[in-house]
């Protein structure tokens, strides 16, 4: 069920990150009085900070009167929203049907094993967040992963691990 998206452990472990709430001024002005503004407000907030900071919920509540519980309900319902900051590189592993048939699970396992994290988690150096996603729509290139804007197709476990290692190496240097 979708409630499984709530990961209290990871939220509580993340220290409260100070954000500049004034960055939200334009967003709030634009959507303050619009019907159905809750989702666009959260999407806009995430565009600004990369995730939904706790303080942003309070600010939206104060300015628009939207209830905190409604916002939290929506934020945990949709896959798009994050309650904790993600790593610098978001690795999206496509687990659509075509990729599944082409054994993407073995590739994801290798990557998670190498990075020592679980699905949806971020490495301790904050370089990588690995997420399994439903379908990236590049089924004919299966198995597929996407890192940032770049899509890598027809992968093998070895190649996938190599790609991640190369990114890590270029980050460290």
């Amino acid at each position, binding site marked *: 069920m979708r409630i499984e998206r709530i990961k209290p452990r990871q939220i509580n472990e993340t220290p409260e990150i100070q954000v500049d709430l004034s960055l939200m001024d334009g967003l709030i002005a634009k959507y303050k009085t619009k019907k159905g503004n809750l989702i666009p407000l959260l*999407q806009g907030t995430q565009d600004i900070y990369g995730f939904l900071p706790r303080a942003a919920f309070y600010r939206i509540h104060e300015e628009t009167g939207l209830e905190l519980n409604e916002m939290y309900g929506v934020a945990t319902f949709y896959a798009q929203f994050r309650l904790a900051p993600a790593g610098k590189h978001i690795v999206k592993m496509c687990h659509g049907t075509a990729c599944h048939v082409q054994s993407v699970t073995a590739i994801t396992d290798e990557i998670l094993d190498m990075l020592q994290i679980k699905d949806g988690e971020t490495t301790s150096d904050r370089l990588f967040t690995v997420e399994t996603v*439903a379908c990236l729509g*590049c089924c004919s*290139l299966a198995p597929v992963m996407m890192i940032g804007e770049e899509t890598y197709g027809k992968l093998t476990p070895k190649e996938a691990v190599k790609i991640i290692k190369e990114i890590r190496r270029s980050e460290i240097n």
Partner: protein
Amino acid sequence: MGQTKVIVGLGSCGIAAGANKTYKEFQRIIESDKLDIELKKTSCIGMCYKEPLVEIIDDTGTYMYGEVDIPRVDEIIDKHIRKFTPIPEYIVQSDKIVSADAQFFEGQVKISLRNCGHIDPESIGEYEARDGYKAIRKIAGQNISPDQVIQSVLDSGIRGRGGGGFLTGMKWRFARNHQSEQKYVICNADEGDPGAFMDRSILEGDPHGVLEGMIICGYAIGANAGYIYCRAEYPLAIKRLNLAIVQAREKGYLGKNLFGISGFDFDVQIKEGAGAFVCGEETALIASIEGARGMPRRRPPFPAEAGLWKHPTNINNVETFINIPWIIYHGPEKYASYGTEKSKGTKVFALTGKIRHGGLVEVPMGISIKDIIYNLGGGITDNKRFKAVQLGGPSGGCIPEHLSHTLVDYDSVNATGAIMGSGGMVVMDETTCVVDIARFFLDFTQKESCGKCTFCRIGTKRMLETLTRITGGEGKEGDIELLEEIAETIKDSSLCGLGQTAPNPVLTTIKYFRDEYEAHIRDKKCPALSCKKLLTYTVAEEKCTGCMACIKGCPVDAITGQRKQVHHIDQELCIQCGVCLTRCKFEAIAIS
């Protein structure tokens, strides 16, 4: 001599295959060498397995090149452009050269995909040059009444392409008959089915076609506002739709008193979905546009009576809307001349999985599954045996090889226990385990269940646990019957399509592959050699070089052996994790 055109396919999957680099390389050479060539962009033509695709049109004919990476760009420019000698090995389709890949297009009838891969989707002029906005002009010019438009849609026989299969004209009539100051048209572009990407391709390739379909719908039902609810995972589609909306407004195709019809106002805006499969269900989609959790509600009242913000609302899928201008412009009789008695027109299928020619194909309803897979799709990869095809994604079912003569129309497909759905066709061969596929789909629906209905929320979880046990080698007698019982209960007790159809993959695989379930449960064997926990790993002595890679990888130290000597796996210690299989470079790990 006319100017040579070079057209690069820049759909999402083309870009993933490197089409942007291909485009830039052409651009670089054309600019640096000052070649007299018009370089253009288009979208996906459907031949995904040969991406990136580049079409060259010159005085002698049209030539479509496949798998055009940077070295091939240089070669094509050198041979084809400078020396006027096309390169047959790379050509996938041409009006001059016969290509083995041409069979991919034979038998296709392109109505939904009529413009995909043929126009620059970012140019309203190119859409208009191919009869774009002529259907709505025909309505305005000939004073065709909204009721007559609805009658034409009814006469065409088109049924909802999103999966429901409800008569589109009927849906429009319901929405028209409800009186209200405010009505809405919604285009459902929340294509969430893993394995289906026709809506993305249409939105990226022909955004104006979708807009025109919505405008016609607005006129027919008396709505003045439209929403396109599109997945945020489709950034390119959203970008091109936004551009199309701006262009249409500038031209006066969206706004007030459109096309000279006094009092006909219509405008469209995009709502980005935030990632929830259940939002493909129309009442959940409406809840999401209203800014809430996307949970379905009881029907009636149907959206045609009380939809978005409680106003009458008509929701159709992308593929449905794209057909509407064609139907109005060419006449419903022509559309109805394709297809079968109860399923008219054409349908787009996304061919993926273990198939040689994966991609998007559009065929008349009533063609057989076998024809699609073997004629258009070129058969199974690596000449393996065709086992089954999963039709309709997580809501659909598995159609086995012995039923591959089944015709693709709504009723014949339903009779097998699968559904047409959005048209995702995932081909499986003998190495695909159907029990694992059923588990895969349940894993998906279980995660995507919104949680409102108890049987869907808990039932899918229980089914997933049972299937995980079976594929993990811990199945027990009675599991199949348990799965069947939960499945029927979920179907009966769920409010929306997600729950009502979630058990289909399990029920159809039990129906057609009961013996495989039994092999997993009784013999603890996976006939497809796919379920890791049911395999035995041994070292093939003749292939083992003694490199120790598997020994280092084994997490439980079950493998022993000296360097340059044949290794050995201790079956008592082995936990069947499969790591040795992926580590071995010499294919020396045998599975049985």
